[in-house]
């Protein structure tokens, strides 16, 4: 067991988890923004926008994240030579955030749309009757109530996102699952302890998110 604890001097487990948290943070913002735009498209009165929103959700929701991630590395960077920044590692960090955001935006969109379904039709009709057109009605009346009704499903998406940040290993980001592989490669004698360390690490990150969103979804639910 002493040998196991000495491992933490050679391998920076905390830094690796911090990388996952950073990925999750930026991808959560990215996917929330993009997902909201998509949700608005899908409830808009313009048929072509609705079509685009539906197509986006169906394509990205049904494509494995690993494929999106590998495409962004081998396709965007490898073949098309896309470089967001000159810093080598930061570039892959951003490619990983891009992939995570594109993928989870589809789920965020559907979570928000389920929230929109909790808003009674009378709200939209009332908004229209006081002269609001579609965008102001969506922004001022529908979406605020929809978000409050969508907190629990959005929390689920966030939890999935946190765990999916491990896929960023495919984009050469030095995060927890990659470090776990390295540690197991060099220290198979304490493989079980290494595995449990990382499993517990994710539990520690994810459980508070679950508790927080459950609490918030009750606290912020629209009383009807």
């Amino acid at each position: 067991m002493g040998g196991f604890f000495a491992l933490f001097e050679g391998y920076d487990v905390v830094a690796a988890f911090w990388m996952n948290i950073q990925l999750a943070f930026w991808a959560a913002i990215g996917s929330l923004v993009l997902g909201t735009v998509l949700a608005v498209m899908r409830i808009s009165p313009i048929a072509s926008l609705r079509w685009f929103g539906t197509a986006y959700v169906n394509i990205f929701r049904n494509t494995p994240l690993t494929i999106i991630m590998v495409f962004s590395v081998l396709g965007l960077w490898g073949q098309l030579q896309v470089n967001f920044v000159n810093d080598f590692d930061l570039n892959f960090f951003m490619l990983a955030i891009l992939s995570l955001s594109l993928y989870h935006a589809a789920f965020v969109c559907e979570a928000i749309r389920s929230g929109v379904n909790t808003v009674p039709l009378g709200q939209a009709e009332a908004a229209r009757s006081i002269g609001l057109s579609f965008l102001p009605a969506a922004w001022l009346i529908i979406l605020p109530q929809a978000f409050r009704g969508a907190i629990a499903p959005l929390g689920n998406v966030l939890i999935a996102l946190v765990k999916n940040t491990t896929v960023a290993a495919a984009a050469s980001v030095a995060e927890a699952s990659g470090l776990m592989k390295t540690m197991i490669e060099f220290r198979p004698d304490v493989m079980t302890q290494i595995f449990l360390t990382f499993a517990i690490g994710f539990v520690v990150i994810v459980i508070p998110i679950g508790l927080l969103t459950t609490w918030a979804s009750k606290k912020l639910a629209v009383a009807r």
Partner: protein
Amino acid sequence: MRKTRYAAVAFAAAAALTMSACGGDSGTDAGGEDTGSSDTITIGIKFDQPGVGFMENNEPSGFDVDVAKYVANELGYSEDQIEWKETPSAQRENVLENGEVDMIFASYSITDERKQRVAFAGPYFIAGQDLLVNADNNDINGPEDLNGKVLCSVTGSTSAQKIADTQPDVNLLEQGGYANCVTAMQGGQVDAVTTDDIILAGLASTDANSGKFKVVGNTFTEEQYGVGISQDSDQCEAINTAIRTMVEDGSWEEAIMANTEGADYSYNDELNPPEPAACA
């Protein structure tokens, strides 16, 4: 009502089919200690390293596979008594400990940490970390030429860690497999791929890659490929004898040459062929 009943029957049938798919692996003798003729032996190899351990259309190939076949033959198992099993790096110790495989030939370097959980026969080959570059690249002749260059290796591999430790100025791209690295090198964004020389040679000798890449031939580590066996196995001496015979009758040399053809590669002949170490 009738529809639900049909659905239930269909579901049960599907479940039965999938279940039976799981139970197919019967008749494997986990011990593999006796060299009887009717038994099978389960051998773990890599499935994704062309030229070393590779599985395509249910047909294993590569240097590891050739050595495994030879050793199994010496132990009294003909080729159709061998059951091949994929053993990715992270699973090798586990499958040996729980008896799922009898021997592992999977570019398995002998290390003290691994010896805590498994035993090794051999080594049957001494590899070294090397670089694979485009065939027309003459600028990179060793790790010291890599500063500022983009180098690709596999996430969590010994090779990746070695470069990260010794060459901090190298831009290290970590990918899920060496095939991805080679793809990125063909795209022009990666300057070199690194891992053990024989794995690189195998990659460069596939039909699709033949003639496009070269192994630099300047190894900077020493990896002793051993035969992984469980700690209570009594086959170590027999395996070592088989390896010695293989080297003596020329099959060893033949296997290396056949599996690295077209890669412009020669193994490190100061260290190879190795003399198997004494069994514990």
